[in-house]
């Protein structure tokens, strides 16, 4: 799994999305490209704590929905998105601007290894051993965009790779989702520009999954008691123990799970469906 191999453009195992590019490049690959639809999560390297938290969360929920997280393994937002994805053992693809066997920046080695360990892939259009030269990075952004079904920008400066990824994505018809930010914060300037130009603002993790679901199809539901046996007017927790004939701790645990899945909500001690 750790030896790179090449996938030629147009062959059966070649990622279909890349054919949308004018110049689909041959790819070097370590690991497995899953059949699952990919979502690119990108952003600036000079990000804020807020951006990191959000990117991690997005990585988690996208992976949780059964989709692949595609990013550039760069510092900041990219790394955070990958981390979030790996924290729930999700499938991730890292697209490098160097050879696939060159981990840059070196501090992201645990993420690089984590992606491969949890069955993801590292890809690059450059031959193994190619050093990480800055001028190559914008080019790899078109691969990130093309390999994904949608592009999510968490934080982006007025100039930078993330903005390029979003614009390239939009050019080849990928929907762009953008987290709005403070108007005077440099790390959000690019995001706000994208929104002005018509990108979809993202208002939270649930909002993102909902928006992506409209494009990709419904997210994978975790196996659970998704059918709630509950009267519409709701019951108190105490009444539910009788209704479900469970012990109180069992009832509470079940209510807690349903609440996380968004199938019920609590109003005081009353459990209400929806």
């Amino acid at each position, binding site marked *: 799994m750790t030896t790179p191999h090449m996938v030629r453009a147009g062959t059966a195992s070649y990622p279909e999305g890349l054919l949308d590019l004018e110049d689909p490049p041959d790819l070097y690959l370590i690991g497995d490209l899953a059949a699952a639809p990919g979502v690119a999560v990108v952003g600036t390297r000079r990000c804020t704590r807020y951006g990191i938290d959000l990117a991690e969360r997005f990585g988690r929920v996208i992976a949780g929905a059964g989709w692949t997280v595609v990013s550039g393994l760069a510092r900041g937002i990219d790394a955070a998105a990958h981390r979030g994805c790996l924290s729930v053992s999700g499938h991730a693809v890292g697209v490098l601007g160097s050879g696939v066997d060159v981990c840059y920046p070196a501090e992201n080695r645990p993420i690089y290894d984590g992606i491969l360990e949890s069955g993801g892939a590292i890809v690059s259009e450059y031959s193994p051993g190619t050093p990480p030269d800055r001028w190559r990075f914008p080019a790899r952004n078109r691969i990130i965009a093309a390999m994904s079904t949608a592009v999510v920008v968490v934080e982006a400066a007025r100039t930078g790779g993330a903005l390029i990824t979003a614009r390239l994505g939009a050019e080849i018809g990928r929907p762009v989702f953008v987290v709005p930010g403070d108007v005077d914060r440099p790390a959000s300037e690019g995001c706000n520009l994208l929104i002005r130009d018509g990108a979809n603002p993202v208002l939270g993790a649930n909002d993102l999954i909902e928006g992506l679901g409209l494009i990709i199809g419904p997210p994978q539901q975790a196996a659970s008691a998704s059918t709630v046996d509950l009267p519409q007017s709701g019951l108190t927790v105490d009444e539910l123990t009788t209704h479900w004939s469970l012990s109180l701790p069992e009832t509470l645990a079940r209510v807690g799970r349903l609440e*996380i899945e968004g199938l019920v909500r*609590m109003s005081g001690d009353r459990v209400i469906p929806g």
Partner: protein
Amino acid sequence: MNSATMSVALVGGDVKPVQVEVHVGRPQESFKLTGLPDTAVREAKDRVRAALASSGAKFPNRTVTVNLSPAALPKGGTEYDLPIALGVLAASREIPSPRDVIVVGELALDGRVRSSTSGMAAGVLSARLDLPCLVPESSASQAASVPGARVYSIKTLAEAAEQLRMGLDGEMVKPRSVPPSLDTTADLADVRGQPMARRATEIAATGRHHLLFHGPPGGGKTMLARRLAGLLPPLSESEAVEVGLIHAAAGLTRGIRWDRPFRSPHHTASRAALVGGGSGVPVPGEVSLANHGLLFLDELAEFPRSHLDTLRQPMEDGAVTIARRGMSVEFPSSFHLVAATNPCPCGFTGDDRKPCQCRPAMVSRYRQRVSGPLLDRIDLVVKVGRVESVEMRSDAETSAIVRKRVAVAVDFRSNRPDLISEVASRLILRALDSGVITARGVERTKRVARTIADLALAEEVSEDHVAEAMVLRGDW
């Protein structure tokens, strides 16, 4: 001619030895008192003079200087009367100098010895220094209840002088073993219905989680809170001593008892009454009196916001520092907070049947009082609804049964690994992502889930434990 007598001072929940030094000098009538005495101590001069006269002893017609050492320690109260009087007698060579005896007691003008709040403090110091102590009869049993104390009970100044003259040949007060007293007046079985609130009470008792009950009047919030005390394991010996001393410092006589203190200050209590203070010698407040026990704040939203904010630091640090010019005193304050509140001024917001009478602005103002930093430290928030008459059945568990479960879980807790299953951690992250809990709520949920696992005697926190913990952290 000098003499020195040992006495005791209460300093921030602990005892410190005090030397009462007396010097009788050249023939000239004068009586001076030095060493940071407060008014009550300064008045000792007159009481000592009268008591000595009433006891048939002569007050020396000479300069008498009394020094309470260490001088930097502020001393209050009336317990130094007896050591001063005995010191005067010793310095005038009437009795041997009681250097190695701890003496406390207030003097009546006729020479009788009155009870003193320092009875217990003397017992503690006696056990610690392995010295005998002379204690007024009425507080002797309290002093003797301290394990290891050697207590001699006395009724009058003359008797005390006689005891010292004979080298303490009187009978020592028998050590009193305190039976484990359990509060049987308030039993959990009295609470009808409310299984969810009971469950929260049990979890709170096991993990010492701060707890908030909210709901309309008549649901049993106050009843439940009071019954939590009866579920807690008894105090250890050192805890019982600490609790007894703090009560003594506040002028309360509790002595050695094994049940946990239960303090319920009214919402009109002053800030000093809550966290401690007072002019002169610092006095512990309710947060310290509730140390190792329960602090119950009924009608939490009626407490002024500023008072609730002052609770934060003692909750966090487990101690209150009261700073005074020249000194600061620290009282322990690791209390277990239980609070109850109505959801709005009239109490019926969110009730199933009864409409709320309050204007919306009033309701939100009321609720905001209980918010922010204080609420962040409360792990369990449970609504206690009104009990419908059908639920009024009394097959409820008694405190004794629950107490046993709590004791087993507390014991289990003391040496088990702290594990959490991967699916459980993932569930917490999912809850965070879907907005069911906040980032701050993560730690709280983990803590409560850990306790729930302890009650199930599970080493590893499971998904079910986490899910249950989330429900018991309802909205306020």
